[in-house]
């Protein structure tokens, strides 16, 4: 948790009102300080072994914000900041008071509370920044259109989540969580839906074989395409084509 300004790449990020940033083990973070940058922060370090044997070890993988970038930091309201600080205070007191048989359970409970609050506050941020999100959705749709229109699928294969995240200058997790909050669907689901639309168009308007349609869409194996098509539409590509004849 931090407040102040952080220099990251060529830009400054302003967290004067307080921000919350998560990082997973192995994630590269940093930046260099400068004379006019002042930043105060609380850092909570947790070794992955601390979660071993607790359900939180599995649940923590559901919190996408552990792979967000610094640009996607959670900006906290005063009330939210106080909530987070109170949990930090509780953890600090527990660490300072004593380490006994119950310490581990108590701190794990507080961490789970912290992660759940962060999840809630991120959802709030997606809503309060809906205008940015709508613009993002529009840009994503434009990129998806261009991917098939420019035949990038033939050149680069299936469109990937990371391709769109990179072009939108976002982390894959943030893009997916943002899209899910706006549309109820993940980035991958959007891509799959679009693949099916393109496939239906090719199957109904061209004489391309199923294998050729799969190749044109970027699939390496036509069986993978047929499996996805059947999962999404409940019928095989050939059955779909026959329905048009």
């Amino acid at each position: 948790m931090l407040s102040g300004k952080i220099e990251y790449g060529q830009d400054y990020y302003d967290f004067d009102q307080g921000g919350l940033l998560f990082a997973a083990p192995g994630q590269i973070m940093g930046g260099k300080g400068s004379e006019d940058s002042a930043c105060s922060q609380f850092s909570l370090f947790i070794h992955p072994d601390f979660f071993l044997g607790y359900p939180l070890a599995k649940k923590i993988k559901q919190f996408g914000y552990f792979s967000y970038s610094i640009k996607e930091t959670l900006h906290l309201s005063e009330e939210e900041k106080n909530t987070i600080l109170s949990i930090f205070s509780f953890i600090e007191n527990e660490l300072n008071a004593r380490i006994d048989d119950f310490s581990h359970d108590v701190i794990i409970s507080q961490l789970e509370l912290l992660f759940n609050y962060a999840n809630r506050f991120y959802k709030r941020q997606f809503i309060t920044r809906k205008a940015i999100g709508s613009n993002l959705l529009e840009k994503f749709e434009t990129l998806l259109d261009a991917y098939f229109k420019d035949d990038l699928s033939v050149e680069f294969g299936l469109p990937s989540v990371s391709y769109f995240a990179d072009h939108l200058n976002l982390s894959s997790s943030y893009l997916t969580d943002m899209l899910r909050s706006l549309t109820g669907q993940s980035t991958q689901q959007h891509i799959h839906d679009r693949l099916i639309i393109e496939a239906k168009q090719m199957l109904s308007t061209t004489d391309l074989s199923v294998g050729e349609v799969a190749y044109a869409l970027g699939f390496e194996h036509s069986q993978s395409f047929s499996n996805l098509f059947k999962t999404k539409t409940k019928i095989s590509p050939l059955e779909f084509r026959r329905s048009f004849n």
Partner: protein
Amino acid sequence: MKKDELLPTKFTSLTDAHLFFDLPEPKHPLVSL
């Protein structure tokens, strides 16, 4: 390599991280604030 280029630092323990950030030794080996 440029002189002011930053090199990534990998922490294998909380103690490593505390040493790097010039913080006092952690009170718990697996969690610290």
